């Protein structure tokens, strides 16, 4: 049974439609991420599940129960807000215990559960402090403890890491995933950060302008984007005009100017039906630059010229000119990076390519 089901959810604010007919099933215990650029309707969707907003149309079910008319305080959800929303006038322990007041829990039981939750977020000794006396990262953990101590049916997280600095964000990412795994709570996570989404999710829902662009596990969304929007939003991609041929066996020949015919695996072009105009998608990190003639066997290679070098520490991002197109390649540094103006061989492996229908 799915923990949360959205059926044909529409949300309008006056004339403006923030969410267009969205349907989604979230399996019990899974970690689902709503990913998309600012203003695409992620928070709106989350707030509808939470009961903080009413959908204009459609149905929401939680654990098989229709909740459209269930007020928020009866939904048994744990919410972590972007700004933490800890009660400033209550101690950390009272903050965490807050949800237990409204549940049938004895004082000792509440105390035990609060301590357990504080230990789970690795802050066992701050119960007597006030939220103001904690750092941002610590407040974040307390907000999480407060949300999970009530053993919610669903945990809702709205960009919980975005207020933290980069290092802390990565630590908390691991931490959050560990805790979610430990208690096995169904989680809906909102972010506009693709690396967070890829690292943490079981399923990613890529959204754009209030519509679902693609739903799938991280590898699938990353490797087999179903639209140009998804290909561009998740990392850097090269998207080239192409022509699809007739599929034979497990491969599909794609004709790309400059590269010739590339036989890509058929399952990397699920949205493509039949031959005709298409787009070839190659991730920047799958495009390998070598000295002319050093291209690895089994890959397709063309000649190019390095135009821009963007040094990033372990990796370099190159912009290379191949014929009249500019391609982007992100390569790990092995020896000395290329310089601007160097002649290189640009190679790709057919199995690293995906194809899309034109105009998506």
């Amino acid at each position: 049974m799915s923990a949360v089901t959205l059926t044909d959810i529409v949300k309008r604010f006056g004339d403006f439609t923030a969410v267009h007919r969205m349907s989604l099933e979230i399996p019990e215990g899974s970690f689902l991420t709503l990913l998309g650029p600012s203003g695409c309707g992620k928070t709106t969707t989350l707030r509808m599940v939470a009961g903080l907003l009413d959908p204009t149309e459609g149905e929401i079910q939680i654990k098989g129960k229709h909740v459209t008319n269930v007020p928020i305080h009866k939904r048994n959800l744990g919410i972590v807000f972007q700004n933490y929303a800890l009660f400033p006038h209550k101690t950390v322990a009272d903050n965490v215990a807050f949800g237990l007041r409204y549940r049938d829990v004895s004082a000792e039981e509440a105390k035990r559960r609060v301590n357990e939750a504080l230990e789970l977020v690795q802050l066992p000794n701050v119960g007597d402090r006030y939220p103001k006396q904690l750092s941002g990262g610590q407040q974040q953990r307390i907000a999480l403890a407060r949300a999970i101590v009530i053993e919610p049916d669903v945990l809702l997280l709205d960009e919980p890491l975005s207020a933290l600095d980069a290092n802390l964000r990565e630590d908390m990412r691991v931490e959050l995933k560990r805790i979610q795994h430990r208690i096995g709570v169904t989680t809906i996570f909102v972010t506009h950060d693709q690396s967070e989404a890829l690292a943490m999710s079981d399923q990613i829902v890529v959204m754009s302008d209030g519509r679902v662009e693609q739903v799938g596990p991280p590898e699938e969304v990353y490797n087999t984007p179903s639209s140009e929007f998804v290909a561009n939003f998740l990392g850097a991609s090269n998207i080239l005009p192409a022509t699809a041929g007739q599929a034979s066996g497990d491969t599909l020949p794609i004709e790309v100017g400059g590269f010739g015919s590339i036989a890509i695996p058929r399952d990397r072009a699920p949205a493509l039906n039949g031959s005709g105009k298409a787009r070839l998608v190659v991730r920047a990190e799958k495009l390998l630059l070598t000295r002319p003639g050093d291209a690895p066997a089994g890959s397709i290679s063309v000649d190019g010229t390095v135009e821009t070098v963007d040094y990033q520490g372990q990796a370099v991002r190159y912009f290379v000119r191949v014929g009249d197109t500019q391609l982007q390649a992100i390569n790990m540094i092995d020896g000395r990076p290329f310089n601007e103006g160097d002649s290189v061989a640009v190679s790709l492996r057919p199995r690293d390519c995906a194809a899309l229908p034109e105009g998506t």
Partner: protein
Amino acid sequence: MSVEAREARQPWILLSPALGAVTLLLFVPLAFILVYSFWLRTATGADQVGFYLENWREALSDAFYRDILINTLKIAAITTIVCALMGYPAAYFIARSKGNKAILLLLLMLPFWISYIIRTMSWINILGVSGAFNSALMTLGVISEPIQMLYNETTVILGLVHFLLPFMVLNVFVSLEGIDTNLEDAANSLGATKWQSFLQVTLPLSLPGLAAGGLLCFVLGAGTYITPIVLGGPTDAMFANLVFEAIITQLNWPLGSALSLMLLAVLGTLVLIYNRYLGMAQLMKGLG
């Protein structure tokens, strides 16, 4: 002069006109009043200069003054409580309404554009013997003779509430505005009903505003003398009326000075207690 020294002097330079005005218009007259309070009024009319404790003895021991002081504090307290009960919901409504807050606040400020005396007198046209209320009741046939509704303690409190309510609403509004609405959402999501989350989260966080509004209402209410003159009966005098009576009617400046310093001491103590526990910053927020 070093940079630090210049910077240390700058606030004082900027403050000096205000400090000058406050010294000249507040502290100097207060000092005069303090000195006066030790003089003695004589039958000939000329005050006797010196250090006499007679006025203070009279002001502090006469039961008449004590009763009126207690009554004044009682009226101010009732007014404050009524203002809190009426003002809090109004402030909550304005703070939580979407879009038209500016207009609602403007409506709240509108009465300040009319003189306080005229606003107080307007009750005579409403509740007076030939006022709107009596006329309406007579036209409807509910009563045959007009009822005297004015000139009692209740109308004094009514007038004070009318005057002071905006101060309460503004103060509470400011503190409600400062509360993150996510806090109530968070409380709701944890299982609290709207009412419970109000009691647990919003109300405690808005108490500083309520206290600031309460202090203003109490101090302004306890110091009033126009409202009891216009809307009170002969027995509804408040403490400031005694001061007025002593100074203007009896020309007894020394006694009036002692009485006014007495009221100042009582209200000043209250402000000090407030400042000790809540701080003046909250009050300034509500006024600005």
